């Protein structure tokens, strides 16, 4: 608490430093249409993309869709218990969802195969392997990486059967690539990439998704303490800079994989 005021943290990091290593692995699941593993320090999160063909919703007959789900596995922390998702998992899914679906990152009209009859629906599952803090940023990065390396399965138009064992070269149509950074306010200081201990004692947080151009595409405030407009402005600046930092890591890893 007092350390935060001096710009120091328990583990010796500066307020705006991420833990290391930050690592991205893709294709960690052959059964998924796209998948990724993100490590930030000791936090490890997986994301997997599955696709299916469904009837579009009545009010959007020319659109497919995307759903994001998060599972805080009891495997990943002694805090989590088996059973239906608790509010923390629901919020993680909703915040990641806001960053990707609500920001219109995916061109859902391109997912439609036949008007009012058949369209691709994408589900991204976020799975925690070890929760050592900052699931929000790890989940956002993993979800985007899984989307970016996903390939549609082979669909036989005449039989109507999807062959999940075979992948096409077609990728998911992305219009922008938002990355979410959550900035925490603890005892008057602003910081990123909280450890589990820091997450237990924060006053407020703001998750800010920004695209490649630095345009903000989704927001979520959390925590009980209020934020001043000046703090919000400063949080935005931090989020834009840090999103660029995470985006570089992501794109470098994906580029390496391509070669």
């Amino acid at each position: 608490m007092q350390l935060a005021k001096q710009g120091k943290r328990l583990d010796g990091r500066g307020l705006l430093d991420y833990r290391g290593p930050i690592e991205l692995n893709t294709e960690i699941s052959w059964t998924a249409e796209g998948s990724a593993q993100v490590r930030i320090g000791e936090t490890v999160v997986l994301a997997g993309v599955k696709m299916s063909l469904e009837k579009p919703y009545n009010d959007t007959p020319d659109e497919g869709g995307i759903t994001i789900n998060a599972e805080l596995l009891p495997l990943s922390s002694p805090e989590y218990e088996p059973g239906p998702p608790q509010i923390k998992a629901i919020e993680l899914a909703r915040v990641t969802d806001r960053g990707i679906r609500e920001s219109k990152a995916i061109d859902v009209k391109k997912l439609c195969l036949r008007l009012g009859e058949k369209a691709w629906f994408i589900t991204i599952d976020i799975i925690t392997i070890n929760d050592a803090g900052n699931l929000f940023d790890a989940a956002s990065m993993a979800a985007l990486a899984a989307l970016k390396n996903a390939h549609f399965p082979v669909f036989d138009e005449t039989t109507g059967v999807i062959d999940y064992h075979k992948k096409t070269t077609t990728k998911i149509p992305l219009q922008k690539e938002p990355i979410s950074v959550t900035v925490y306010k603890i005892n008057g200081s602003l910081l990123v990439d909280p450890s589990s201990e820091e997450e237990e004692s924060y006053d407020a947080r703001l998750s800010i998704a920004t695209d490649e151009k630095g345009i903000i595409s989704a927001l979520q405030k959390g925590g009980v303490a209020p934020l001043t407009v000046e703090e919000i402005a400063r949080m935005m600046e931090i989020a834009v800079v840090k999103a660029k930092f995470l985006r570089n890591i992501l794109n470098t890893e994906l580029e390496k994989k391509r070669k």
Partner: protein
Amino acid sequence: MAYTKRLDGRKFDEIRPIEAKAGVIPNADGSAYFKAGNTVAYAAVYGPRELFPKHLQNPKKGIIRCYYNMMPFSGSGERIRPGGNRRAQEISMVMTNALNPVVDLSAFPNTVVDIFVELPQTDAGTRCAAICAACIALADAGIPMKDMVSAVAVGQVDGAIVADLIYDEEAYPAIVSDIPVAILHNSKEVTLLQMDGEISKEDLIKAVEMAQKVSEKIYQVQKQALKDKFAREEM
């Protein structure tokens, strides 16, 4: 015998390439990663810790509980809806029975050791991979154990007895049997035995004997994973 060459080119008694690593989940008291071909299992052990609800407590010794789960994107077909199902519940139960004979929790009355196994990708043999991962994680957690458990599926594909079936062999268009078996390393006793399909009683015994033989290779990999973990800790 029509099945003269295996679909993936392995010898009949050849298991898939396996990899194992202990201590992969820092939050857990013990953990492991286990990969057999395209089937991957993570296991985490938490405990001994106090067991709730209290009426489940055993004042003589601690108990173990297994939770087996396939991740939503880990099936070879459509997405699996999360939230558990009868199959996962049954596998969790037979896993608990397969591991129970080797753990000694008499020093920890009224406690539970929870074993969570999660699979990010699968190609048959998931309960066996789950047991192999769980056993490494239990040892990594320092749980008192009398023996190690190694598990592998054996079976008969169109007349040929084979070890460690892949999904395409389970689905081979002929008479197929799929027999997951767990073997204790020292006593060679069987702690998991199930079967789907059909097989003669003579061939069943041959298949179980093949499981006993190949489980030795799995045991070596499990042991090495633990040795590597302790070597890392000493550094």
